[in-house]
């Protein structure tokens, strides 16, 4: 028989029980839609992180005291025998030509208070270069002065300013940080969370002041901006060489490039996406069981029909094919409905959360649709064989056609 005839006959079989066909089709649709939605969430998260990193500037080097054996995220415990100093930062700027700017960073937390308003704040000790390296914008006043690394001045994050001054102009006012007095010289424009730190809750003070405030000798890290993205890796190697030379021949710093951090996150989020796809795939499998169930019911309901088919000379193989094709039609149609549903729901979410880059990865879409077709064939196999093996005589004895 021709494939068109086979399709036509199988489709007719499905029309015989529309509601059940529709429900099992829906099962597959939900499976496929959830694969598409969950993977677009995972992929969206990956893109979100990538975008966040890019907003830091893709030409960034991060110098961390201590040496990690494997490239990856920052070491948790600093074991550097040599402190990372402002002189090191200057040396990078002087001796590595590709490095355009450096910003030393000291980080700590301290209580910040103004009058009787107080709260804990993240204190970041740095220089004016920070403004450029992290692409910050000043909302009012000015950023840290370029040439007074130990001035008692501070620049407030937007929320900190709101909470300490309740909307009043803080410029020129005094703020107490960790028991020391600082004069407010500027406010940073709201920016929100960027890689684990809420920049709106940060107060920036000059780097030397911060070292003294926290009684430290070593910088927390040095941020260095490289001229061009293509020079990042070479600049990172040069930076290591310069610092190794300065630290008595000991390679005791780690230089992270934006790319290395990114690829670490990239890996994590790709794994996350794959895991989500796996979870959603389970629902596809369950949908397959649904199809199998519906097909088995259909086979037992259509016992007389199968008996008749055999009586009119339909072969074993043709009976198998009819039921396999019915299952495949169900699952494939479900796959297509799920595809449209999943992509549609993604669009809706995108409208609701415009900032989050939902994106269904092509591999997941293709795999979900392909698997949905396969699901019908695999789970249709048992019912189809059951049908093909029916004894035509017993099948025909049933009283209702």
């Amino acid at each position, binding site marked *: *028989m021709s494939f068109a*005839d086979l399709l036509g006959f199988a489709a007719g079989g499905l029309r015989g029980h529309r509601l059940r066909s529709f429900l099992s089709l829906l099962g597959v649709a939900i499976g496929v839609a959830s694969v598409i939605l969950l993977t677009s969430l995972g992929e969206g998260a990956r893109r979100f992180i990538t975008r966040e990193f890019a907003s830091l500037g893709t030409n960034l080097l991060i110098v961390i005291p201590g040496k990690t054996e494997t490239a990856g995220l920052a070491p948790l415990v600093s074991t550097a025998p040599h402190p990372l100093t402002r002189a090191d930062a200057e040396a990078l700027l002087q001796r590595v030509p590709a490095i355009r700017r450096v910003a030393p960073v000291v980080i700590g937390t301290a209580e910040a208070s103004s009058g009787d308003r107080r709260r804990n704040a993240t204190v970041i000790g740095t220089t004016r270069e920070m403004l450029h390296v992290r692409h910050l914008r000043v909302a009012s006043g000015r950023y840290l002065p370029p040439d007074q690394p130990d001035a008692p001045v501070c620049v407030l994050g937007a929320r900190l300013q709101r909470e300490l001054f309740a909307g009043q102009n803080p410029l020129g006012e005094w703020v107490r940080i960790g028991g020391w007095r600082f004069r407010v010289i500027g406010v940073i424009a709201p920016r929100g969370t960027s890689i684990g730190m809420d920049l709106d809750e940060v107060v920036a003070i000059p780097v030397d002041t911060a070292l003294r405030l926290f009684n430290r000798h070593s910088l927390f890290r040095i941020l260095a901006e490289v001229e061009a993205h293509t020079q990042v890796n070479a600049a990172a190697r040069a930076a290591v060489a310069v610092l190794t030379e300065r630290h008595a021949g000991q390679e005791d710093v780690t230089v992270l490039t934006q790319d290395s951090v990114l690829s670490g996150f990239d890996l994590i989020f790709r794994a996350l996406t794959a895991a989500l796809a796996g979870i959603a795939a389970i629902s596809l499998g369950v949908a397959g069981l649904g199809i199998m169930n519906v097909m088995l019911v259909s086979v037992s309901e259509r016992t007389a029909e199968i008996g008749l088919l055999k*009586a009119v*000379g*339909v072969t*074993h*193989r043709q009976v198998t094919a009819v039921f396999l094709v019915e299952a495949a039609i169900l699952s494939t149609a479900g796959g297509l409905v799920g595809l449209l549903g999943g992509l549609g729901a993604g669009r809706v979410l995108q409208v609701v959360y415009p900032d989050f880059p939902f994106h269904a990865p092509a591999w997941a879409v293709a795999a979900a649709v392909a698997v949905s077709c396969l699901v019908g064939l695999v789970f249709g196999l048992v019912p189809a064989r059951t049908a093909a093996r029916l004894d035509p*005589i017993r099948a*025909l004895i049933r009283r209702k056609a």
Partner: protein
Amino acid sequence: MIELAGVDRTYVVGGSPLHALRQVTFTIAAGDYVSVMGPSGSGKSTLLHILGCLDRPTAGSYRFAGADTHQLDEDQLSRLRRCQIGFVFQFFHLIPRLTAAGNVELPMVFAGISPEQRRPRVAQALARVGLTPRAHHRPDQLSGGEQQRVAIARAVVMEPHLLLADEPTGNLDHTSGREIITLMEEMNRAGLTLIVVTHDPRLGERARRRIRLSDGEVIADERLAPPP
């Protein structure tokens, strides 16, 4: 055309053998009109299934049109049923979702006959049973007699040599039953071998030859008229 020699059919029911057919031996010539009669449980349905190649003898041989059916595999038996044998059942066994034309078309669909060739043959088969105006009705829109006529059209659309009817009037009123049997007898006169299985003597006695079964054995084989 049909040669049965020493055919036994034994079922195992609850651990003990049940002899549905014992040593059945007869031959039926092409074009004959034979009834198989007997009370229920006499083995006449089993005989019909074996004649129709839906079942195989436990012992003995069945030759159909010269071929030993024992030597044929499942696919070959399917082909035999498709091309040489038409079935008519007591309960019609029409597919409820298909129209009359769709049901008649069915054997040709699975035989791989193209839609262009199928259409005229469906029309012709429906015309033969007088159902042309009902071609696009579904079984639930047809009377019992009409349904059985659709079944007959389906049985003969592949132009088989043998028509097997299992209690064809058993589910019909007297008038429709008469129409059905007349229709099949007409086809027999046109050369189709007709075997009717029934427990109804009035129906069975219309045949030229009557085979009576009791307890799986042939107890009588009468011929009223010579085969054509």
